[in-house]
């Protein structure tokens, strides 16, 4: 993994992005805006399951409205994320928070998918799962930012320490 990261970091594409003063900030900014779209989409779906928002709409209607934003958002997040990884592979792959974020992301996506199955059919969805889904996505955001602070957050457990 380390070797692959070093190799990737030495490719012309990676070097081009690294040496630019604005590409990484721009990519990260776009990444953050997309997180806003995805997180609030998740929030609204969770709030519908909890019966707190958009209660006059059928669950399937709320799903139909926000699922597309979720899908597009996650796709673009994966794209910008991929470019960010390509630009600094060593930084990402040697961060404990990065791997934890990926795990939580997989769990978060699965959770939303499960909620979606119920919402689409106007069937009752688990309130516990809804709360867990929100917490998972909050954790994804936390560990995403924690990548930059891997030693501070993980101390001796950090690969970088």
């Amino acid at each position, binding site marked *: 993994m380390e070797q692959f990261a070093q190799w990737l970091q030495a490719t012309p594409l990676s070097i081009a992005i*690294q040496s630019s003063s604005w590409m*990484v*900030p*721009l990519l*990260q*900014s776009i990444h*953050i*805006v997309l*997180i*806003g*779209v995805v*997180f*609030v*989409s998740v*929030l*609204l779906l969770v709030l519908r399951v909890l019966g707190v*928002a*958009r209660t006059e709409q059928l669950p399937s209607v709320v799903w139909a*409205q926000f699922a597309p934003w979720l899908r597009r958002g996650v796709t673009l997040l994966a794209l910008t994320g991929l470019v960010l990884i390509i*630009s*600094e592979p*060593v*930084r990402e792959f040697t961060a404990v928070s990065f791997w934890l974020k990926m795990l939580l992301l997989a769990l978060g996506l699965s959770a939303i998918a499960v909620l979606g199955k119920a919402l689409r059919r106007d069937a009752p969805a688990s309130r516990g799962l809804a709360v867990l889904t929100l917490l998972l996505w*909050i954790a994804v*955001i*936390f560990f*995403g*930012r*924690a990548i*930059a*602070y891997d*030693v*501070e*957050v993980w101390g001796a457990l950090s690969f*970088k*320490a």
Partner: protein
Amino acid sequence: MTLQDLAQTVGNSGLGAWMRSNVLAMPVVEAAHVLAAVTVLGTVLVVDLRLLGLTDRLRRVTVVSSEMLRYTWVAFGLAVITGVMMFAANANTYYGNTAFRIKLLLLAGAGINMAIFNLGSLRRVVQWDLQQPAPRAARVAAALSVLLWLTIIFAGRWIGFTKGYDFAVPDNVDLDLTIP
């Protein structure tokens, strides 16, 4: 007392000292700030897209906004608190940072835009709650809001790339400081 004096006072406060001394403070506070900021952005977008007639066309503006804005304000409050905490950690650096100053100006702009809208077309919202399109002033306010908040996020991220020495990083650890 000048603004710079005020900044220095905040930096020299107990809060500032605590932020600098606690190694987990900056990561946790900054992550909370990002969470708050993206929630502000997302909830504001829901309302702005409704005002622009792009989403929720069958729902009343008053319903869409009252439903969302409670979250916007809680998130904004958290963003301000975490923002002040981060500022206290490194007050002089942020004070002199151009991206930080631009961000504060943009925030003021967003506030002014919101005030004008609230005192203007929103007062008569009962008349256009379900109307398509919404009054031009409302749509202009919504478009400005989207523009301002996106730029605020960008300016915020740019602070991290232009603030210079990262005090939070221990001297004896070999870290890649290219991307904060």
